Structures are given as structure tokens and as C-alpha cells.
């Protein structure tokens, strides 16, 4: 790790290479000419994950491939992350792609990003001369923009574990190999009595629907298990959608995205209330 940070600090033109599923598309099709390339996939400490019972959290290495999140003990601890990982690309893409790469690219349609936003993840960033812990909300600064500065690498992310239902859903033009048209992650914290909702592909950055979240807390006691009426769920979806600022592009229209995200929010809320 130290060696890697030295190299990164010494080479202004360096690109970190994880699974290559974004970077190599740039090289193959968009004429990107990488200068120094620093592969991180071989670093064991960036490919492992740890459950930390004392802080009730999970830390996931930035270079852990999606296929390792889809099932098994990590998926049981973080079902929303597993669901989001399962929607990425295809098995071949999931065998290579990583959270570090999703954060490096920072596309508004990145499937892992709403999960990190809803769980209020902390991004651990290393540099030869310093380290920073950044909340996801401060990490992503715009369309394909983040706050990393030269010489920095995402080492891992930490997400708190909560008791309560969590899930991820996305809308696209088909079931496999599809970039999100709109996506949503909902996390119910049964102890705090709170529902967090994060929306993807409907604004330059991932949106936390904080007003809809607060509104819901006033309508329903969210401690323990809870129920919502169809009207409440419907209104929750509409309120969440009104917090977004989608655009029309080659994948969809703004109107459709706003509608889709309201439906996703409603459905996730209905699933979380049992």
C-alpha cells in the first residue's frame, strides 16, 4: 500500500486501475491514452471486507469485485448493496467491477452510489501524506465528478449496519446489462425510527430525498415494524420525485425519470412496511 501511495504521489498523470470496466472502455473506444497506470486489484487489503461488531459497521475494500457482494455473509449484512451489485452489467462485468471504480467514475447512474448515500457511507481516502474520511454526500460533487485530488486513492468504504428492511431497485430498458434510467435505495432504521431514501440518475449527483424522509416521519411512527396506507406511499413517492432534477437524454426523458423514481420510492416503501 505504501509503495502504491508513493507511486501515486510521484506521478501526476497516474490512473488507478481496478476492474477496468470503465477505464478500458475509455482506452478501447474513446482514445484515452493512459500515462502511468497503477493497478490496485492485487492489493489484498483493498479486496477484503470486515464486519466490525463493536462499531456495528462493515468496511468494504474499494477493489472488492461486485460478484463477492451478491451473495454470502456480506449480502446478508447488507441486502441493499447485494441487490444493487446484482443489477450491474453482466456476470463478467460483476466479476471485475468494484466500488472504487463506481466512485472513481461517479456517474449519476452508478448503481452502488444510491446505496452509499442511503446508508450514509464514509469513504476512506489515502494519500502518501495524509488520509481523509469523507461522507458520501460530500464525495460526489457533480456528473462524473468527485472530490479526489491527485495522488489520492479510495481505500475502502464503511457503512453502518441498521436493524430494519433495506432494498435497491432500478428501472432500465431491459433486465440484464442495462444502465439505470432511474434508481432508488431505501433503508429503514427501525431503532432510530427513520427511513432514508436515495435516488440515482435523476440529478447531477445522487439525491437524498430529505424532505420526503422528514414528511414520512411525521406521518408514521417508524420505530419497529410499521404500516403505510397506499395513499401515504403514493404521496411519499411524489414528494421524493419533486426533490429531483432529472434531464432528458438518449436514455430517457425528464418526465419519465420523475415518474419512474416516484414509483420506485413508493414500491420500496411498501416493501419495507410489512
Amino acid at each position: 500500500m505504501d509503495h502504491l501511495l508513493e507511486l501515486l504521489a510521484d506521478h501526476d498523470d497516474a490512473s488507478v486501475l481496478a476492474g477496468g470496466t470503465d477505464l478500458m472502455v475509455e482506452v478501447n473506444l474513446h482514445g484515452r491514452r493512459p500515462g502511468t497506470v497503477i493497478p490496485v486489484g492485487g492489493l489484498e487489503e483493498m479486496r477484503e471486507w470486515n464486519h466490525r461488531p463493536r462499531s456495528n459497521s462493515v468496511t468494504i475494500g474499494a477493489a472488492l469485485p461486485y460478484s463477492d457482494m451478491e451473495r454470502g455473509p456480506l449480502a446478508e449484512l447488507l441486502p441493499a448493496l447485494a441487490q444493487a451489485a446484482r443489477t450491474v452489467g453482466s456476470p463478467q462485468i460483476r466479476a471485475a467491477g468494484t466500488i472504487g471504480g463506481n466512485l472513481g467514475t461517479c456517474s449519476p447512474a452508478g448503481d452502488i452510489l444510491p446505496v452509499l448515500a442511503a446508508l450514509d457511507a464514509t469513504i476512506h481516502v489515502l494519500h502518501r501524506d495524509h488520509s481523509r474520511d469523507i461522507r458520501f454526500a460530500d464525495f460526489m460533487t457533480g456528473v462524473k465528478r468527485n472530490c479526489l485530488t491527485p495522488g489520492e486513492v479510495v481505500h475502502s468504504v464503511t457503512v453502518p449496519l441498521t436493524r430494519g428492511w433495506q432494498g435497491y431497485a432500478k428501472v432500465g430498458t431491459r433486465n440484464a446489462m442495462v444502465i439505470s434510467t432511474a434508481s432508488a435505495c431505501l433503508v429503514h432504521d427501525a431503532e432510530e425510527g427513520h427511513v432514508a431514501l436515495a435516488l440515482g440518475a435523476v440529478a447531477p449527483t445522487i439525491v437524498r430525498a430529505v424532505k420526503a424522509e422528514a414528511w414520512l416521519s411525521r406521518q408514521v411512527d417508524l420505530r419497529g415494524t410499521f404500516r403505510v396506507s397506499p395513499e401515504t406511499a403514493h404521496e411519499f413517492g411524489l414528494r421524493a420525485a419533486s426533490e429531483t432534477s432529472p434531464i432528458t437524454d438518449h436514455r430517457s426523458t425528464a418526465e419519465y425519470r420523475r415518474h419512474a423514481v416516484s414509483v420506485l420510492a413508493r414500491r420500496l416503501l411498501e416493501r419495507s412496511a410489512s
Partner: protein
Amino acid sequence: MSIPNDSLNESYSLNVNGTLREVRDAWLGESLLYVLRERLGLPGAKGACEQGECGSCTVIMDDRAVCSCLVMAASATESRILTVESLGENGRLSDVQQAFLDAGGVQCGFCTPGFIVAVHHLLDQNSDPDDEQIKEALSGNICRCTGYGRILDAVKVAARGRRDGVGS
């Protein structure tokens, strides 16, 4: 760990199909697909989209099925790479290859090597996959000819063969 930027004369070796293969004077940005086909004389993996969408370039890297078009070859020096050429022995077809022929899962054949590698990978982990699991495992491989029905049949034939203890 790092790959320097004197980019036109990279030399490194790759562990391909159990043999260390020398790659000389390569450009840093070359994909594993390109290096296999153009430098190492292994044309089994096919290139179509070069963006991870079609699966025709699928190889096994460290027990994972990946798109070789998205692997930067120079970063794979520590990995064990298996291509479709490693399947079957002494010129005989592997069980999966034979099943594709028997079931009529090959038409133009362009997608076939990618499918064969992906199916081997699936059956090595699960010799009794149901339809959903087969479709999911092959969702990263595109075929323009067969309509997938016969490919599905071929996977089932190969799976049955493995459960009955025939083939490898």
C-alpha cells in the same frame, strides 16, 4: 506494481493456459484480448464490441469469467489466465463443446468460444443449474444467430453429462 509510461516498449510475461508467455514491446493500453490474439497466437477469444457488452472475448482469470477486452494485459502479470484453447484434451472436444455441436448451439460460431468458456465456468460451480440460473450466467454473452434456445439445450445436455459422470 506500477506500469511506467514509456508506453511503446512494455515487456512482461503472462501465465496463459498454464504456460508463461513473453509479451515484448507492447503498448501499455493493449487489452488482454488484443495481446492473446495478436501477440500470442491465441485467436479463440473473439472481439466484437470491445466494451464488455457481448461476451465473445470471455476468458477465465483467477477462477472468474471476465471480458478480456476490459483487462489491461500489462496489469494481468500476476493472474492465471485460461482461454478457450485450454479446454478439451489432445485435440478432443470438451464436454461442453461437444454438447454445443450435438444440440445445434452453433450457427455462425462467432459467439461460441465466449459461450463455451462461460458455460464451463458455470458448470464448474454448479452442475445442476435451473433455467433461470443458466440465463443469468449467460446474460453477458450475446448471440445474433441461434435465438438462445439451442444454447440453453446444450448447457442442459452438458450438465446432465456431468451429473451422470460423463466428460469433464
